[in-house]
C-alpha cells in the first residue's frame, strides 16, 4: 500500500482523471473531495461491506421458501 501524507487543501491524483482533495481535518475526521469521471462510482467502504455480507447471507437461503398465502 502506498502511504502519502497530505495537509488540508492538498490533493492526490490517481491516474489521469481522479483527484482526491483533503478539504479539512477536524479531530479524527477527514473530509475528502473526490473528482472522478462520471463512469467511476464512488462509495463509502462500509456501505459496500454491509451489502457484500447481506448478499452472502441471502445466498444461504433455505432450499425451499415458505409458501406465501
Amino acid at each position, binding site marked *: 500500500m502506498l502511504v502519502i501524507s497530505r495537509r488540508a487543501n492538498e490533493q492526490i491524483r490517481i491516474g489521469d482523471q481522479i483527484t482526491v482533495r483533503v478539504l479539512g481535518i477536524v479531530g479524527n475526521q477527514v473530509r475528502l473531495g473526490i473528482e*472522478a*469521471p*462520471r*463512469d*467511476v*462510482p*464512488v*462509495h463509502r467502504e462500509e*456501505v*459496500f461491506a*454491509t*451489502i*457484500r*455480507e*447481506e*448478499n*452472502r*447471507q*441471502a*445466498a*444461504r*437461503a*433455505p*432450499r425451499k*421458501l*415458505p409458501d*406465501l*398465502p
Partner: protein
Amino acid sequence: MSTIAFESERFGPIEVDAGALLQFDEGLIGIPGRDWVLIAQRADAAILWLQSVEDPALALPVAVPETFYPDYAPVVDDATLMPLAQGDELPLEILCVVNASSGDLERFTINLRAPLLINPITGHGLQAINDADEYAVAAPLWGAVEISRLRITPPQLPTVLLEES
C-alpha cells in the same frame, strides 16, 4: 436462438434460451458470476430466484420491490447507470435481493439499499448502491405491506417458470 443448459442444485437441470440470460458483468457485490437466470416457481410468485448459471449451488431469492414497498424510489447516480444505458430511453427493471436465511417468513428482509438494475432489452444488469439513505440493506420484508394485502408486481424480465411437482 441457441439454448443454454446448466445444472442447479435447487432446481435440477435447466435449459433456457440464450436470450433469457441476465448478464451482470461485474457480478453482484461480493458475489462473482456473470450469467444468471430468473426463476419463478409459480406464475404469480412474489419471491423469485436468481440462479447462477456458472455455480449450481448459488441462487438468491429476489423480489420486485414494488410488491413489498409500493412507493420504492431508489436514487442512483449517472456514473452507476452508464454501463446499462442504451440510447435515451432507459427502461430499467428493478429486483431486490431477499434475505431468507432465517427460514422464517416473518423475519425475511429485503435489500432496498442495493437494488439490481436490469435493462430488459439487453439483459444486462448490475447491483447499484442506492444513495437515498432511508433505504436499508436489511429492511423488513413486511415493513410496508401486510401479507393479506399483498399485490404482486411481476417482473418485466425473461423468467423461467419451474412449477414444483
